[in-house]
């Protein structure tokens, strides 16, 4: 069959220590393919731009207009930045709903049977949201926020292009943690995601500085990645030094990793329970 045009080559074997990471990456890649197929099924470019993006820009304008009506120009710009960044956090909370779609698709039983860690399946399964959310946030920050007094110079844009996806991914990890619990109660998926995003809007310094809340509330805000990544973006906006920006971004990354670890443990525990009970309905 020489000349059939297809050649099969074995992949280079990974180092033993790296095998779990390689396997996890492969699982994420495959489940991300489902995420992108879902995205294509729901949105065309026109629907995304004139539907979704328009809606999100209207949301940023909605909250910013309140500040413009009642507050100072400085606070108007503050809210414009906060709500522009918030759009990606909001979109990432869709992971709570899209994780439960697997129950509706009837694939949970199969997931119980495979040796792959479920967290990597679900991590890849909804990756369309942080990607789309990053796009929405960047457009809002760069094109809408300037209408409310925010100004960027070209040197700040690369930092935003890094920090916005960081915000999206770390918040996505928080959403994934919530999704692990909602998998067993998919009737409340929309309530959980909406309440979570509104709480983040209250706590994370989106509309007013975190320091305005009592210490106990600030402590809760500190474990949410959005608090730190948004702070990093505000530091960039204020022209702060790289070390301060990196410090805030590092804290966001640390929080995101913590929530991902939490999601890992939660999904594993639920899977172990489902296997023990012999029922994926209680996954």
């Amino acid at each position, binding site marked *: 069959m020489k000349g059939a045009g297809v050649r099969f080559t074995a992949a280079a074997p990974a180092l033993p220590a790296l095998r779990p990471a390689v396997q996890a990456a492969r699982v994420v890649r495959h489940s991300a393919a489902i995420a992108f197929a879902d995205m294509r099924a*729901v949105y065309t470019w026109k629907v995304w731009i004139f539907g979704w993006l328009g809606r999100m820009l*209207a*949301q940023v304008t*909605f909250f910013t207009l*309140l500040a413009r009506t009642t507050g100072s120009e400085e606070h108007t710009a503050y809210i414009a930045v906060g709500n522009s960044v918030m759009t990606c956090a909001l979109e990432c909370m869709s992971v709570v709903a899209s994780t439960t779609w697997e129950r509706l698709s009837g694939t949970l039983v199969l997931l119980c049977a495979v040796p792959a860690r479920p967290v990597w399946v679900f991590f890849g399964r909804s990756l369309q949201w942080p990607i789309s959310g990053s796009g929405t946030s960047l457009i809002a920050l760069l094109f809408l926020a300037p209408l409310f007094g925010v100004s960027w110079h070209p040197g700040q844009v690369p930092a935003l292009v890094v920090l916005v996806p960081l915000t999206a991914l770390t918040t996505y990890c928080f959403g994934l943690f919530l999704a692990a619990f909602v998998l067993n109660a998919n009737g409340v998926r929309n*309530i959980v995601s909406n309440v979570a995003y509104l709480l983040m809007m*209250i706590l994370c310094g989106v509309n007013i500085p975190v320091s305005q809340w009592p210490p106990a509330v600030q402590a809760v805000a500190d474990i949410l990645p959005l608090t730190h990544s948004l702070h990093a973006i505000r530091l960039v906006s204020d022209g702060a030094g790289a070390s301060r920006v990196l410090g805030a971004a590092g804290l966001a990354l640390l929080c995101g990793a913590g929530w991902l670890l939490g999601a890992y443990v939660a999904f594993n525990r639920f899977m172990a329970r489902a296997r023990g009970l012999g029922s994926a309905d209680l996954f």
Partner: protein
Amino acid sequence: MKLFLNGFVFQLRLARRSPDTFQVCATAPLLTVIFLAINKYTGAGDLTSFAVAAPTLMSLWMLALSTAGSALTEDRDLGTLEGQIAAPAPMELTFLGRMCSVVVVGLVAFAESWLVAGLLFGRWLPVPHPFVLTGCLLATAVATAGTAGLLAPLFVLTPSARTVQNTLSFPFYLLGGVLVPASSLPDWVQPASRAIFLSWCADLLRDSLAAPPVHLPALRLLAVLALGAVGYGTGMVLLHRVIMRVRRAGTLSQT
């Protein structure tokens, strides 16, 4: 009236099994906190009436969107759509009853927002015009139910209905002057804003919570009801056309 009540009770029974209907009870207080926190931080004039009115109207609109968006598809999933269409009872009446029962839940949002303003921010909002306020809330609920009647067939006719459902929230809040009065929007937007019943409701609701006498309350209530009726009438014509089309084509189960 009996048909209306049957629809009312039927939707309440469905709502008991659908936590999404009560989602606004969780989100309205949080929205009030956001608005009042901004107001307190800026130190500008007291905007408590804005912070109570906006979540109420947003909750009602959200319910209209979610219920109207899912009503017909849910009926089809339950297997009751065929029966409703075949029955001699006019679907327009039962449908209005169903929508009215859902918007009653939205009125809870007003009480919640009022309580949150008092309990968390110490801003106990007086009600200087209780009759206008009650009339406004009832008219808003009826107009929302009527407008849901317009949205339901639109969602059936539109591909990507879920996306459209998501899209119609904040642009309408903005255009309807739900938080910031429509009068502060650019001049060219205002005619469109006045065509949306929410803008009349928002202005009247805020005025009914303010001390000065309310200007022309009866006329403004009439405007709210008239816009709701136009929405409902148009929706029922559309619904009738959709039903006739699927009857003729024999594609009801694919609608």
